[in-house]
C-alpha cells in the first residue's frame, strides 16, 4: 500500500530500473545465441 506519490514512484521506478537492467543482461546471451553460428554458416 502506498501512502504518498513518492512511495508509489519509488516502487514503480525502482522496479522498472531492475527490469531495464535485467533486459540488458538478457539481451547479451540472446544476441550471442542468435549469432554464434553466423561464421560457421
Amino acid at each position, binding site marked *: 500500500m502506498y501512502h504518498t506519490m513518492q512511495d508509489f514512484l519509488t516502487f*514503480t521506478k525502482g522496479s522498472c530500473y531492475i*527490469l531495464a537492467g535485467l533486459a540488458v543482461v538478457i*539481451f547479451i546471451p540472446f544476441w550471442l545465441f542468435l549469432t554464434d553460428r553466423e561464421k560457421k554458416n
Partner: protein
Amino acid sequence: MNQPAKSPARLLTPFNVIAAVILAGGAAIGLLRFIKGLGATTNLSNDVPWGLWIGFDVMTGVALAAGGFTITTAVYLFGMKEYKPIVRPAVLTGFLGYALVVVGLVVDLGRPWRLPYPFIVKAGPTSALFEIALCVMLYLTTLFIESTPAAFEWLGWKRLRKLVGSMTIALTIFGLLLSTLHQSTLGAMFLATPTRLHPLWHSTYIPVHFFVSAIAAGISMLIVEGSLSHRVFRDQVEISHEQFDKITIGLGKAGAVVLLTYFIIKVMAIGLENEWHYLATPYGALFLVELLGFVALPCFGFLLGYRERRPLLIRISAVITVIGIIFNRLNVSIFAYNWQLPAERRYIPHWMEIWVTVAIVTAGVVAFRWIVKRMPILHEHPEWRGVH
C-alpha cells in the same frame, strides 16, 4: 475466333467467381451504409463508436502495411542490398494496404467529400487524428510515387521512370519520417482513453508499443507475403528459392530482435504503472495469451529459425506474429476497450461489417494479383535490370 470463346471461360475461375461475389456483396453493403447510415449496417453505438472497420481495416491495416517503409529503409538507407528483390512487392503491398485503409476509413466515416476538410477548411493541429490524417495522406502519396517505377517500366515511359528513380532516397526518408509519426500516433490516440482502455493495454508508452509492433508486423508481413507470392506467382519470380530462403532467414534475425524489444517494453510498461495485479484477472489471461503466445513464442521461433537456418520455422513464426498483431490491435480497439461496460452493451460486429472487411481484403488481393501478373514486381524489367 477462338479468343472470345476462351476469354469468358478463363475469367470464370474459382478465384474470380468467389472474389466477384465477395466484392459485389461488399459494394452493395457499402452503398447501403452510405444511404441508410451506420445504424443499418453496423452494431456501433454511442458506447462503441469504433468497431471492426476502425479496429481491423484501419488500425491493423496500417500496422501490416509497415513492410514498405521497413524494407526501403533497410535497402536504401542502411545499404542492405541483399533485400532489394523484395522491395517492390513490399512497396506495392504497402501502397495497396494504405489505399484500402482509406477505403475502410471512408466507409466508417461517411461523407467522403469531407475528407479534405481537415486540411483546407478547418485544421486541428493539436489533434492526434489530424496528424494521422495528414501523415496517411502524405504517405499514401509517397507510396504511390514509390510504386510507379514498375508501372512506368511496364508502360515504357522512360523519362518518368528516370525521374522517379532519382527521387528514391528522398522518398524513402520522407516515408520513414511519416511512418514513424503516424504508426506511433495511432497508439497515441488511446492516451485520451485511460478509463476506457484496460490498464494492461493502456500505457503512457503506447505510442512506442504501436511503433515497435508495427515494425515486427512489417517484417512478418514481408515474410508471409513473399512466401505466398513465391508459391502463387512462381512463373513471375526471378530469384531462386535458395536466395529467397536467405532473405527470409535474414528477416527472421530482425524479427527476433524487434519482438524481444517489444516484449521488454510491454513488460516494463506494466511495471511502470504497477499493474501486475491485473495479470491475475480474465483480462490478464487475455493479455498473457497475447504477450506469451503471439510475442514471446514467435520471438523464440525467429531466434531458433535464424540460428538453425530453418526458413520454415521463420515463416511459421511470421504467421504467428501477423496473427498476434491483428489480435493486439483488436484487443486495443475492441476487446479490451470499454472493458467496464456490462456484457449486454458490449460490441459484437454485425455480419455486414465483417463482409465489408473481407471485401476490402479481397480487393487488395485482386489488385495485387492483377498488378503482379502484368508489371515487373517480382522480376526485373529487361531494360532496367539492376537499376531500381
